[in-house]
């Protein structure tokens, strides 16, 4: 695409429907969108306009808030009545299992009772433990694991990629061969071996270990980006001005590679959720007494025929978290991609045409 300097005619009113069709040619709409805005502003606006990503962001935040506030986290108590793994005491609460078989007490707005959550909205398991609190604890574990994986993978990936791409030569060869070394194995197999070493009730060591094997994709992307960025004029200019290598990397090149990094990290995190839950399911991840969504599914898999809710809720939340993170990643990619254009639908084009016709008719009418 040619980079033209926007020639904005001050006399022309952008609200005027004739403005778009008055001869700026291809790219005029994008230029108008970008006039007087920084790159960050453009990206932010594009992201905020992305309906799918925004919905996903709201849902994800809601899930995180629900997960962390309900059963409490660290020393902060939660508002939910039951702690994870707790079960009603027949003497104190008057029942062991609320509904027959421990069925969920949540009722939907269209049912006879109307909407209500009851004492055990997600049901109870065979010995009466409250499922809601366990699922919430599982969400906490998964989110913590994913965030740690994201941080570790980003740091390692950016570091390796940036050094390899900036210095090239021997450093590049060595680092990329190390990347090849890690990439040769399916992450789930490596994760299982690491899980056998680090996997236990505490999610942090496991997350650190998994983070140490999921940075490879990011490092390759960052390296490619740096290889092309270092040939650009602004890098030469910085070097001529006497900037040190560190300054060039952090001040000049890294901000320009931010789009690639953010998108790739989001997608790494969404696959990390599935990796952690899979490992916990297989028995190589989080173990009791801690709770993970994957662990819950593996615990209650056999109960599917009799108590399906024990299986449904944890799975539903895994899908929900992974899906929303994926959607956010997609929205970010669209926002960072300068080639992306919003293409109006046929109906919108027809409406715009009609508006234009009417405006023309008015103008000619006014002149006569």
């Amino acid at each position, binding site marked *: 695409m040619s980079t033209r300097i926007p020639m904005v005619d001050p006399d022309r009113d952008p609200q005027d429907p004739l403005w778009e069709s008055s001869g700026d040619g291809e790219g005029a709409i994008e230029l108008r969108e970008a006039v007087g805005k920084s790159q960050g502003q453009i990206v932010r606006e594009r992201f905020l306009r992305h309906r799918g990503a925004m919905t996903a962001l709201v849902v994800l935040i809601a899930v995180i808030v629900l997960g962390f506030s309900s059963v409490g986290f660290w020393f902060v108590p939660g508002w939910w009545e039951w702690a994870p793994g707790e079960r009603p005491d027949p003497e104190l609460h008057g029942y062991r299992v609320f509904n027959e078989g421990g069925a969920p007490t949540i009722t939907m707005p269209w049912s006879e009772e109307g909407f209500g959550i009851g004492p055990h909205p997600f049901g109870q398991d065979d010995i009466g433990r409250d499922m809601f609190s366990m699922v919430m604890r599982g969400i906490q574990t998964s989110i913590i694991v994913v965030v740690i994986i994201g941080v570790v993978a980003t740091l390692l990936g950016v570091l390796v990629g940036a050094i390899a791409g900036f210095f090239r030569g021997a450093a590049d060869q060595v680092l990329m*061969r190390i990347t*090849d*070394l890690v*990439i*040769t*194995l*399916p*992450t*789930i*197999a490596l994760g*299982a*071996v*690491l899980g*056998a*070493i680090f996997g236990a009730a505490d999610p942090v060591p496991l997350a650190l270990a998994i983070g140490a094997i999921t940075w490879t994709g990011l490092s390759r992307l960052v390296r490619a980006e740096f290889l092309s960025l270092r040939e650009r004029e602004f890098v030469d200019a910085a070097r001529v001005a006497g900037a040190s290598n560190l300054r060039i990397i952090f001040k000049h090149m890294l901000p320009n590679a931010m789009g690639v990094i953010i998108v790739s990290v989001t997608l790494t995190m*969404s696959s990390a959720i*599935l990796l952690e*839950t*899979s490992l916990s*399911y*297989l*028995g*190589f991840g989080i173990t009791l007494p801690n709770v993970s969504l*994957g662990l819950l*599914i*593996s615990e209650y*898999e056999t109960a*599917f*025929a009799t108590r399906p809710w024990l*299986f449904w809720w944890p*799975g539903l939340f*895994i*899908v929900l978290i*992974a*899906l929303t993170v*994926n*959607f956010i990643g*997609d929205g970010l990619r669209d926002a960072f991609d300068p080639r992306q254009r919003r*293409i109006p*639908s046929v109906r919108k084009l027809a409406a715009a045409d009609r508006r234009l016709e009417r405006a023309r008719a008015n103008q000619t009418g006014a002149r006569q």
Partner: protein
Amino acid sequence: MLQFIVRRVLMGALILLLSSFLCFLMVDVAVDPLEDLYTSTDPDAATLIQERIEQLNLDRSSVERYFMWAGAFITGDPGTSWLTGRPVAEELRGAVIGTVQLVTAATFLSIFLGIGVGIVSALRQYSGFDYLVVFFSFVLYSLPVFWVAVLLKQWGAIGFNDFLADPFLSPITIIVVALVAGVLISLAIAGPPRRRVISILGGAVAVGAMLFYLQGTGWWNEPHIGPELLLLNGLAAGFGITLLSTGLEHRRALYSSLTVVGLTLVLYFPVNMLFDYLDGAQLTGWPIIVALGVVTVASGVLVGRLFGGPDWSQSARTAGIVAAIMGAMVLLDRIMQFWPSYNANSRISGRPIRTFQERTPGFEGNFWEVTLNTFGHLILPTLALMLISFATYTRFSRGSMLEVMNQDYMRTARAKGLGERTVIMRHGFRNTLIPLATIVPVDIITLLGGALITERIFARPGMGTMFLNNLEENVMEPVMAYLVIVAALAILANIVADLLYAALDPRIRVSA
């Protein structure tokens, strides 16, 4: 070129050596062969521990043990399991076959379906169909395999088997299914409102009629293709393939594919008699079927060649593809003929879709029934594996096709007056496949990782099960064998991907 290959292979071997060393150290930490003895209450525990330390050389350093293991592995001895006393090589043989079966079927199916759906979706960018495909590929991408597999076990196996026990669909179900199918078809076809209505109605009527036909003829319990459906499907395949590959105006191609369809119908009964004879002589087997398949495709090509013309190669190609489809349908029909006897087998007793292992223990039958048994075991794990890989291919081929559609050569092709079919199939589709060639080998490695989970859930004996079980039971050798084999495959896959890329795209030069 040769230099490139030699260099990459040497580099790969070096990486493999290093990666096996690192894996060995990690697995050595992960497994503890003495675990069961430490917790045992046996009064002789101390002597047993001493014995096992000697047996496994645990008193040596792990580096020393690595070189002992690597030396043996390179000379073709992957070791022996201390737990069962079985040589790992023996265990591997069965496991590799199981995994290859699973991964092959899933790979081919997801490539075909994924590319097809992705390309149609790209051609209808920003339409309802496109949004639907993108959304569902996201959902599939976010599904945990183990969760889907449990759902498939519940609905796919138990639900479908229950349905087969009493196959009845109420007319309302059929109408709803038909309407949904019609809407989906119309979304994929798109076009002006009139055409949309026609395609909704047409699709709904076709699907509804098919479902009523299946129900009315008791097809569910006696599935068959038979001459009449063979003719119908054959005509559809003949016209469809010709339309896609050369366009209907290419008369010779159309006639050659229709001739192939006619020939298949004529040969249907003789081929079945041949199979009856082979069954009687107990000769039926995959070698013969593959040979027959080759003959079928070759005769299709020959038909195209005989129709002649200046561009006979196009007719030959079209007729060859149609012949392959027709051959597959005759084979499928043959397998289906044995469905009732398979279903009635005392080991199956009306539960044809199986969820455990790779064959029913104690099942006996002729070649076709055994094949059905294998398929019955293969179908659910394959589906579970396919879902994720399908989403990857859909997204990738959609993106790739969109990229290609914006290229200048597409505009040139349209500008010089080529038909839309030629532009899309010859200029667009072929260029879309180039970048795909690089992700297929890499995706197969991902599938191997997915197979780890599916094999565990469906209790299929395979490499993944072998890996997980031995990791749990603290047996090192099979775990290492798995890791080394998968790493070797991955390295090989990456070299193949680079070579394929260079071979398909002349702009890329290999010089690494």
